[in-house]
């Protein structure tokens, strides 16, 4: 039923999105923590910067990434010269693009969870001898885990669906950067591509639904641990 190209697009999308979430999650937790807890000059600026991809046209984000991470951009140049790593027009580049685009969603979910954590519990842990890192690992993180999971799932879904930033920064190379939305776009552009487009669209819907269900299930499990009788 599925053609090789379609399967390829599916796998590629999953890989790109998984990588994107895996690498940005720790950073998102750190940034969310800083935004929720720290007080420093320029915090508003950081907040704005993190949220920028949410309000900018994705194409602009892709373009900015090209400027920065293209082989001739300041960061891309260094990466290429020192490590031989090229991001533009590669699947890693696609992951970077989706990570940047979904980052604000992830940070928002985690930050929200952090803001609802009872600081009194952390104080109690402090009086019981727990240092800062210990406290985060043993108290804060388990308590925000539902929020972290929710953020990861939303970001994963957004990564699967990211179009503008990916096509601009990583281009539309079948097998390398052609994720589901890009494949759908191409199928629509192609004569007799309607069936392919429809099948890929259905696949996207199924993926999105499974993601939502999974996150709801996990969140319920965790909530049950902390609140159920």
């Amino acid at each position, binding site marked *: 039923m599925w053609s090789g190209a379609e399967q390829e697009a599916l796998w590629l999308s999953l890989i790109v999105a998984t990588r994107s979430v895996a690498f940005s999650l720790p950073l998102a937790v750190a940034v969310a923590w800083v935004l929720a807890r720290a007080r420093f000059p320029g915090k508003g600026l950081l907040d704005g910067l993190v949220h920028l991809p949410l309000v900018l046209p994705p194409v602009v984000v892709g373009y900015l990434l090209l400027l920065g991470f293209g082989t001739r951009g300041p960061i891309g140049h260094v990466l290429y010269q020192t490590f031989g790593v090229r991001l533009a027009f590669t699947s890693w580049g696609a992951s970077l693009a989706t990570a940047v685009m979904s980052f604000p969603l992830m940070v928002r979910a985690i930050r929200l969870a952090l803001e609802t954590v009872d600081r009194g519990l952390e104080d109690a842990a402090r*009086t019981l001898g*727990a240092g800062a890192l210990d406290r985060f690992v043993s*108290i804060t993180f388990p308590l925000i885990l539902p929020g972290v999971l929710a953020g990861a799932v939303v970001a994963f879904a957004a990564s699967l669906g990211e179009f503008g930033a990916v096509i601009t920064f990583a281009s539309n190379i079948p097998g390398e950067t052609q994720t589901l939305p890009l494949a759908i776009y191409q199928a629509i552009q192609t004569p007799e591509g309607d069936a392919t487009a429809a099948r890929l669209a259905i696949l996207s819907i199924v993926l999105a639904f499974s993601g939502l269900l999974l996150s709801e299930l996990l969140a319920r499990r965790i909530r049950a641990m902390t609140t159920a009788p």
Partner: protein
Amino acid sequence: MIEVDIKKRLGAFSLDVQFEGGEGVTALFGRSGAGKSSIVKAIVGLLRPDAGRIRVGDMVFFDSNVGVDVPVNRRRVGIVFQDGRLFPHMTVRQNLLYGFERAVGEKRISLDAVLGVLDIAPLLERRPVTLSGGERQRVALGRALLSQPQLLLMDEPMASLDEGRKAEALPYFEILNSEFGIPILYVSHDVGEVVRLASDIVLIDAGQVVASGALGEVTARLSLPQGAEGFGSGVVLECRVEASDQEAGLTSLGTPIGRVRVALMDRNVGSRLSIRIAAKDVALALDEPRNISVQNVFRGRVVEIGEYPGYIVRLKLAVGEGFLLSEVTADAARRLGLAAGLEVVALVKSVAIGR
């Protein structure tokens, strides 16, 4: 031993307190908003004083003169919060062991000892959300004890419990000090709790210490300072159960003012407790009356006399090695010719003596 001498401005409120606490249970007593919680936070390290010094045992926690400020997690102060603050994602066992696992040095207090004293062994595998208020506070207490503290702070640990739960939890708090030998600072605005638990008291009002000392001594003052109105007028006496007569339905207590007979108590001979004798329950006579129902008759001497609005006269009497307060009408005082130095007989009904 604990020594606190701190200053702190918090908006319009300013805290400026000096006091010491002993090896027993010291009550930090005052109205809400008097500054009790700020003092507790400063001792535990969650609030940094503007200036001053805090010492517990031989460890200086804070000293603004030499720039010492020991981090919260190294102070080894166990604290029981009003709301318990058990970790919701952990079982009771994990909660109890949280501080235990992080304690350094010799561990004098074992899990078994705490489980036994607090009766919480059956709760070990439960989650905090499933516990009743009283159970929660007992677990919080156990968790604090197991962190091997050199001082236990209790910030109104029973304020969120209803009367029934409170009565259920009080006995556990009562035996702590003697059982584990850890000095306790007990914050409360409940007179009953303080009388039952504390041996010393520090009275706080509007960010200042207005009185401090042994509970019996402070409560024997003719006029209590502002903030202590809750105590009304009456002395607290530390007693030892001397004998219980099942037949007569009476328990005899050895107190600084002599033997006091009260209605039968469910207490072992030799155990220690405190009672409170309200000034309005102490009647005075010049001669020892005969054929009366009153069980407690003491010979004493008027040492101080004060007049108060409403035609009431309040007197401080020296009885045995202690004191009693008595309130009589101004008319009665005139008829008996009550004056400082006069020998009198004080009468206290057994049923009027409460704990």
